[in-house]
């Protein structure tokens, strides 16, 4: 099921649809809900374009990511990595093309997508004047989780914040805020994780703590942005390289050499 991918940087002006995904594009969105009926591809992008005014931040990105695997996105600042994540998170509308998450179109079925993704961007999306557990409880209510207090306590325990759960987030260090943001992103047990440099601000010990929640071992479908060619390729199944919004590289991560990733930044 490995998607066909151009080994060399290709101009993505003409989107090429990987052969493998034609059969996988199930038109049945409810199939995404059932445990057995998961679509083969958790994320499908077809000639995805997002413009800001006349500037295209994403220009014709086409790929398919099998459920349970990890897409690692490389590219210099401003290449469109964050835009891609925000489109997948339904925070930005695509200008053209389609993006499907778990078989649901982000534009037309955004409400279906929202409950099943965990988004971790540069902002922690936490209120500084609320305590750690209050922040998580608020998000639990918004996600309709019942009896979430046990889950919240467990998550805080796992990231090493149990003793600080009643403290205001303003008093936290950046690394602690990031760990709490990880809890927020996985609180509702999402099937897909969208992670924008998830290890930013984390020391190695803290990175170790969040690994079971958002790392490869979490077993979730993941889209991760990275600036680190070696580490990024090691944790990804599929590598996407963006340059000025265009798809400059798309290949199984195992087939990509770190030097190829380095090319993107030149």
């Amino acid at each position, binding site marked *: 099921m490995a998607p066909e991918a151009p080994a060399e940087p290709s101009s993505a002006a003409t989107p090429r649809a990987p052969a493998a995904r034609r059969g996988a594009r199930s038109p049945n969105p409810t199939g995404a809900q059932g445990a057995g009926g998961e679509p083969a591809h958790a994320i499908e992008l077809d000639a995805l374009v997002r413009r*800001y*005014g*006349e500037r295209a931040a994403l220009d014709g990105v086409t790929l398919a990511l099998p459920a349970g695997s990890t897409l690692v996105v490389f590219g210099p600042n401003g290449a469109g990595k964050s835009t891609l994540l925000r489109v997948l998170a339904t925070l930005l509308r695509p200008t053209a093309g389609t993006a499907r998450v778990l078989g649901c179109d982000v534009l037309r079925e955004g409400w279906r997508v929202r409950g099943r993704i965990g988004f971790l961007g540069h902002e922690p999306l936490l209120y500084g004047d609320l305590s750690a557990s209050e922040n998580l409880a608020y998000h639990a209510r918004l996600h309709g989780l019942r009896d979430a207090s046990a889950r919240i306590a467990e998550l805080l325990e796992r990231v090493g914040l149990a003793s600080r759960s009643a403290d205001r987030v303003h008093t936290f260090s950046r690394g602690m805020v990031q760990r709490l943001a990880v809890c927020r992103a996985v609180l509702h047990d999402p099937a897909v994780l969208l992670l924008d440099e998830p290890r930013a601000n984390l020391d190695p010990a803290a990175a170790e703590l969040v690994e079971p929640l958002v790392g490869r071992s979490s077993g979730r479908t993941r889209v991760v942005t990275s600036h680190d060619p070696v580490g990024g390729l090691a944790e990804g199944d599929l590598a996407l390289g963006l340059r000025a919004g265009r798809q400059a590289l798309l290949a199984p991560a195992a087939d990509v050499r770190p030097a190829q990733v380095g090319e993107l930044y030149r």
Partner: protein
Amino acid sequence: MPTSNRLYGPRLRALAIATTVVLLGAFVLAAFSAPIEADQGFSQKIFYVHVPLAIVTLCGFVFAGICAVQYLRSGDSRHDLRSYTAIHQSLIFCVGTLLTGAIWAKASWGKFWVWDEPTLVSFLIVFLLYACYQPLRFSIEDPERQSRYAAVFAVVAGAFVPINFAAVRLADPLIHPRVLNTAGGDLPDGMRLPFYLAIVGIALLFATLYRYEMTAKHSRAQLRALRRRLGEDAGDGVNRSAAPRIAAS
């Protein structure tokens, strides 16, 4: 710009000629054939400018609101451009309404501003509200969001106009005994034709200016696109704009 000429030139010229003819005819009729009003004398003639200006201003705001709704429904930036241009022109006409109203007030009551003229007071409030449109657009950088927020504003402001008129009119139970009903329903016979002609003329003036601004916007967009194709700096990066950005056709 040959393209924009082909698209807009002939109609613009025809509109301009029609505007001149109709307005001139209306004003000549108003000045020489319409009866001189007994109480106010010749100064009442400003009625033939003031009232049509007011009517066209309101129609322009309504049109802008409708275009804004269409923009929100379709996301097509041409509707946003129409809404923007209509509000821009209506604001200018609104200033004209206020100025001619002030002149008329001075002539008939000796004061430039009277508060017991609810329609004029309403126009002042409407002007103050729509005057926020440009600053609002200017303070939003992302062009798509700028258009969307401006459209929301245009719809809200459009709904505001009637309720504002109602509130202001109710606030003043003693409406001045008016010689003329502003709606023009009970005009003497000699006044009716020049008055209606003046409305048509001012509406044509609005249409001409509206089309002229649209043509200018399209030409500028084409120029920018051509420059970019030549590899020149089109100035997109540094210039913030309150006007909608349109893709060159």
